[in-house]
C-alpha cells in the first residue's frame, strides 16, 4: 500500500511539474526516477530485483535486443532502451541531413515544382509534412518547413500562419502512420513487439484516409486567406534556387542514401529480424563516418535532454506498473466499459486524445501501454487493436492545442520569432475541428475494420 501511494504521488508530482514548465523536463523525470528507485522499490517494495528489472540495462546485452531472428520481440517493461537508442540514432541521421541542407533543398525544390503558386505550395507542403513525419521526428520537419514557409511568405506576400498550422497538423498525422513517426508509436512498437509494417498497415492506413479529409478541410478553411494576393506580380528571379541550400554535394548525396537506407531497413525489419535499436545504431554510425570531421558537431547536436527525459519517465512509469496501479486502472476501464469492446476502444481513443491535447503524449502513452496490455489479458480482447487505438488517440489528440505536441510548439515558436503571433484562440479555432474530424474518422474506421 505504501509503495502504491508513493508511486502515484511521485507520478502526479512529475506530471504537474512537467505541465508547469518551470524546470527542464529531463531534470524533473530524472529526480522523480531516483526517488522512485529509492522510495517505491527500496523502501516500499524492499525489492532490489525490481530496481534491476526497471533499469533493464542487461537487456541491451542480449542478442534479441539487436536481432530477433524472425520471432516477435519480447514485451518489455522498465526503461525501454530500444526506444532511446533508436531515437538517438535517428537524431544523428537527421542532424546529418540538416547539416548538408537536405530539408531546405527539398522544401525549395517542391515550391519550385509547383511554380511558387501559393495554394499548390500549401497543399504539397501539407503532404510533404505528413510524409517526412512518417520517418523523421516532427520537430525537425516543422523546424524546416515552417522556416521555409516564412521565407516564401515574405517573397510571395502571403500570410504564413495558415500554412504553418496545416503543416503542424499534417506532421502529427503523418507521425501516427508509422512506428518511428512519433515517440508514442516507437514506445508502443518496441514495448509490445510490433513491427514497422504492422503500424503502416494499421495506423498508416487510417492516417492515409484521414489525410485526404484533412487536406480538404484546411483548403476549405484557408483558401480565401491564401488567395488574397493572387494577382500580385512576383519576380521569380528574386527567389533562392533549391541548389543554393545544399552545403556539400557529396555530403548531400551520402545523407540522402543513408536516409533511403534507413527507410528500407525500417520497412523490412520484420523480415530481416533487425531490431529498431540495431537500425538506429547502424544508421548513426554510418552518418558519423560520412560526416568525418563534423561527426563531433553532430554528436553535440543530439538532444540528450529528451533522451534523459525518456529514461526518467520509464522508471517512474515502472513504479506505477510494479506496484499494480496500472492494473487497477485497466480494471477500472474494463468495469466502465462493461466488457463492451466498442466502448473500450472509444474510451482509449478519446481519453488518449483529450489527455494528449493538454499533457505530453509521451508519458501518457508510456503509462497506458501496461494498461492496455492488462486490459487485453483480462478482457480477452485483441491487444493490437487497443495499441492502434492508443497510438492514434495520443498522436492525433496532441494537435488540438498549442501545448499538445512538440510540432505545435516548434511551429508557434518559429512563427513568433518572425513576428507572426499564433494565440491559443487562433490555434484552437482551426485545429480543434480538424482534430475532431480525424478522431471521428479514426473511431469509425477502427470499428469497421476490427469489429
Amino acid at each position, binding site marked *: 500500500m505504501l509503495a502504491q501511494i508513493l508511486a502515484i504521488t511521485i507520478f502526479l508530482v512529475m506530471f504537474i511539474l512537467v505541465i508547469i*514548465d518551470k524546470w527542464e523536463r529531463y531534470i524533473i523525470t530524472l529526480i522523480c526516477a531516483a526517488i522512485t528507485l529509492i522510495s517505491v522499490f527500496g523502501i516500499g517494495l524492499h525489492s532490489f530485483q525490481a530496481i534491476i528489472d526497471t533499469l533493464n540495462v542487461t537487456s541491451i546485452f542480449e542478442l534479441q535486443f539487436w536481432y530477433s531472428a524472425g520471432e516477435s520481440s519480447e514485451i518489455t517493461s522498465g526503461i525501454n532502451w530500444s526506444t532511446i537508442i533508436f531515437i538517438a540514432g535517428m537524431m544523428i541521421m537527421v542532424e546529418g541531413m540538416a547539416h548538408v541542407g537536405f530539408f531546405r533543398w527539398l522544401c525549395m525544390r517542391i515550391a519550385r515544382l509547383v511554380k511558387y503558386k501559393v495554394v499548390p505550395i500549401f497543399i504539397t507542403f501539407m503532404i510533404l509534412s505528413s510524409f517526412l513525419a512518417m520517418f523523421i521526428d516532427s520537430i525537425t520537419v516543422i523546424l524546416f518547413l515552417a522556416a521555409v514557409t516564412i521565407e516564401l511568405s515574405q517573397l510571395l506576400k502571403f500570410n504564413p500562419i495558415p500554412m504553418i498550422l496545416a503543416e503542424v497538423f499534417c506532421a502529427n498525422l503523418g507521425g501516427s502512420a508509422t512506428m518511428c513517426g512519433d515517440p508514442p508509436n516507437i514506445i508502443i512498437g518496441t514495448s509490445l513487439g510490433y513491427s514497422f509494417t504492422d503500424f503502416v498497415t494499421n495506423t498508416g492506413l487510417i492516417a492515409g484516409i484521414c489525410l485526404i479529409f484533412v487536406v480538404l478541410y484546411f483548403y476549405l478553411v484557408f483558401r480565401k486567406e491564401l488567395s488574397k494576393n493572387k494577382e500580385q506580380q512576383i519576380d521569380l528571379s528574386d527567389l533562392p534556387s533549391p541548389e543554393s541550400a545544399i552545403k556539400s554535394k557529396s555530403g548531400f548525396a551520402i545523407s540522402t542514401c543513408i536516409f533511403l537506407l534507413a527507410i528500407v531497413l525500417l520497412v523490412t525489419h520484420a523480415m530481416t529480424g533487425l531490431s529498431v535499436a540495431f537500425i538506429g545504431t547502424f544508421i548513426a554510425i554510418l552518418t558519423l563516418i560520412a560526416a568525418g570531421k563534423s561527426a563531433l558537431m553532430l554528436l553535440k547536436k543530439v538532444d540528450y535532454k529528451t533522451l534523459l527525459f525518456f529514461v526518467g519517465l520509464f522508471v517512474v512509469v515502472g513504479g506505477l506498473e510494479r506496484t499494480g496501479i496500472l492494473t487497477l486502472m485497466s480494471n477500472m476501464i474494463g468495469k466502465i466499459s462493461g466488457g463492451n469492446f466498442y466502448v473500450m476502444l472509444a474510451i482509449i481513443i478519446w481519453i488518449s486524445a483529450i489527455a494528449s491535447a493538454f499533457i505530453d503524449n509521451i508519458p501518457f502513452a508510456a503509462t497506458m501501454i501496461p494498461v492496455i496490455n492488462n486490459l487485453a489479458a483480462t478482457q480477452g480482447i485483441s491487444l493490437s487493436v487497443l495499441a492502434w487505438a492508443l497510438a492514434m488517440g495520443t498522436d492525433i489528440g496532441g494537435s488540438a492545442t498549442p501545448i499538445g505536441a512538440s510540432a505545435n*510548439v516548434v511551429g508557434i515558436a518559429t512563427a513568433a520569432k518572425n513576428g507572426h503571433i499564433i494565440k491559443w484562440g487562433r490555434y484552437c479555432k482551426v485545429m480543434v475541428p480538424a482534430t475532431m474530424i480525424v478522431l471521428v474518422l479514426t473511431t469509425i474506421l477502427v470499428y469497421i475494420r476490427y469489429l
Partner: protein
Amino acid sequence: MEQFIISISREFGSLGHEIAEQIARHYNLTLYDRNILNEVANSRNVDVAPLHEYDEERISRIFHRTIRGMSTHISDHVAQLQFDFLKEKAESGESFVVVGRCSECILKEYKGLISIFIRGDKENKIRQVMEAHHLTRSEAIYMIRKKDWRRKEYHNTHCDYKWGDSRNYDLTINSSRLSLDECVQLLIDYIDRRYKKIYEDVKNKME
C-alpha cells in the same frame, strides 16, 4: 561622436517616460519605447496589434510548453524581437534613449550605456496616475500595482538582477523629490559627465 545609450527604467506613475522624452529631445536622439514594435512589424511586414498585446508582458507558466529551447510563450518571443532590435541598433553604433525593455541588462556590454531607474513616492504616483488617466484613487492604486507587478515579472524573467535593484543601474532617483525639469536637468548633468568620461576612456585607450 562616441556612442551613448541612455536606458531609463521606471515605476508606473513616476514620470519616467516624460523624463526620457525630454532627455531624448535635449540630445536630439531617437526615443525607443513601444514604438520598437512598430519598426519590427514594418520590417517584417506583419500586423503590429498582436505584438503590442504582449509588450512588456510577464511570462505565464500555465498552459505553455518549451521544446528544445523553443516555447509557446508569445510574450517571450515579442521580448526577444525587441531585444534583437535594440542590440542591432546598439551594434550599428547608433546613440539613442530607450525606455524599459530590460535595456539596462540587454545592452550592458556596450560601454556607452548609461542606465537610470526612476522611482517615485506612492502618493505622488497615485496623484499623477489619477490626473493622467482620469481615474479615482482606488483605480489608480490598482493600476499602479498591476503595471509595476507586470514590469517586475517581465524584467526578472529576462534579467539576472531584480527590477529596481539599485545595484543594476548607474543611477537611481526619486522623481518626487524634485520637479520634472529639475530631474531632467540633474540627469542631463550626470549624462554629460558620464559621456565625457566615456569619451576620455576611449581616447586614452587609443593613445
